[in-house]
């Protein structure tokens, strides 16, 4: 009796789930495009048209690049220009294309205790943070956002790593976890706008610093090089990239809204 029930349970559990189409590609991606909901909006349109399923592994720029270097992906979508160029130069990628842009913002307590709103640009804001010793949470994980953050500190002539553990806290985590920490600590952090706008735990935080060329955030898309990594689905991967860069794909990106706000701005040439 028990045996029969167990056998039944086993069959039910092991019955294969409905299989998706046989054609698919794996995209190694940053998290902002996933967490904001862009992929949820964009990819079904592509699949409907091409019949190719897009499987996104959204693990953050650093890990996405490492995975792609191992050949564990067909297409790379990240936002770290220098790392992307190195990826292609090292032979792992075929070519880098401009895909879209948005911008970074610094968020912090709505009351703005460090007076960031008084600075005219991001350099001034970072200096104020360093001076007042206001807690700043860094990604600390080699992601696109992290690399941008470090570049901004450098441009301001500051090295916050000396105060690591004091007012400069490295979370070593993704954007979502870092934001949760910043909210919990009543601290400041750098985030891309898309992730922030769609974030569900804003607490009493608001955007304190935005705008200006220094905070631009360009995304690139790269096909993983099939010559170095045999097994890459280069054909279907290229179809996907072509679609993203096409007027249709770019328009779809522009049409994506959260709370009425456009989060990504097409930049293909």
């Amino acid at each position, binding site marked *: *009796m*028990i045996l029969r*029930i167990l056998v039944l349970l*086993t069959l039910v*559990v*092991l019955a294969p*789930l409905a299989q*998706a189409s046989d054609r698919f590609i*794996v995209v190694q991606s940053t*998290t902002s495009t996933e*967490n904001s909901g862009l*992929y*949820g909006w964009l990819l079904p349109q592509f699949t409907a048209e091409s019949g190719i399923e897009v*499987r*996104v*592994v*959204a*693990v953050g720029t650093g890990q996405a690049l490492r*995975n792609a*270097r*191992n*050949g*564990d992906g067909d297409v790379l979508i990240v936002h770290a220009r220098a790392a992307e160029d190195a990826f292609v130069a090292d032979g792992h990628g075929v070519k880098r294309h401009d895909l879209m842009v948005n911008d970074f913002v610094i968020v912090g307590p709505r009351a703005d205790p460090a007076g960031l709103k008084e600075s005219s640009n991001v350099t001034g804001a970072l200096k104020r943070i360093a001076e007042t010793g206001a807690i700043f949470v860094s990604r600390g994980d080699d992601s696109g956002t992290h690399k941008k953050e470090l570049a901004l500190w450098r441009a301001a002539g500051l090295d916050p790593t000396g105060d690591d553990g004091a007012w400069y806290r490295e979370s070593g985590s*993704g*954007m*979502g*976890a870092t*934001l*949760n920490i910043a*909210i919990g600590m009543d601290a400041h952090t750098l985030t891309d706008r898309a992730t922030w706008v*769609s*974030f*569900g*735990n*804003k607490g009493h935080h608001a955007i304190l610093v935005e705008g200006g060329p220094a905070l631009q955030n360009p995304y690139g898309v790269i096909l993983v090089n099939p010559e170095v*990594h045999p*097994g890459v689905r280069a054909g279907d991967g290229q179809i996907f990239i072509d679609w993203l860069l096409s007027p249709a794909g770019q328009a779809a990106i522009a049409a994506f809204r959260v709370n009425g706000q456009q989060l990504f701005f097409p930049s293909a040439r």
Partner: protein
Amino acid sequence: MGDAIAEAFRLIAVGDAALWEIVSLSLRVSLTAVALACLIGLPLGALLAIARFPGRGALIVATNSLMGLPPVLAGLMVYLLLSRAGPLGPLELLYTPTAMIIAQTVLVTPIIAALSRQVIADMHQEYDEQLRSMGITTMGAVLTLLYDARLSLLTVALAGFGRAAAEVGAVMMVGGNINHVTRVMTTTIALETSKGNLAIAVGLGLVLMLIALTVNGALMALRGTQGAARHV
């Protein structure tokens, strides 16, 4: 917290298709992993309990220690194995439910082996002389003890299932949390947390606990139908 409970009920009541897809994948992955872990771990534990051979002590210590293997480390090891750059790359198993099953099996087998070893060792004390006087083979002893310890071993299996169903590090690493393909309960909770949707995340967590309760409750009922007084 109230939001979370409300969210949990809403998800279940609505019969949210996405939720049931995630739940069934979670069950499929973890139950399969536990089944495989039992297939390997039960005979292994029984042999460790009964047989005497050089290095047995070291093997027992190793098995016990592996119960504490961090899931993310197990995931990393399996990732390195299955990566296209790794030895089993050509099998194209990365980012599939199969990879998740493999990683969880690695995680759960030591638990099954270590705990069943203790259970069987205790029973072996009791049965050894009688079984030896009957001229039983080692394999015969293993099968006899495993069957006679079946109720305790069920609890061992449940401990393994608890570990598998609750972990996120291994399945995230080898599964990639791909929507509709490798997204399970724990990785969904992690994802919703990273999107700041804390109420949904906790709600999902409550659903997960409810499933664990249901599995355990069902098995307890099964035990009950055997008749309370039948087994001392």
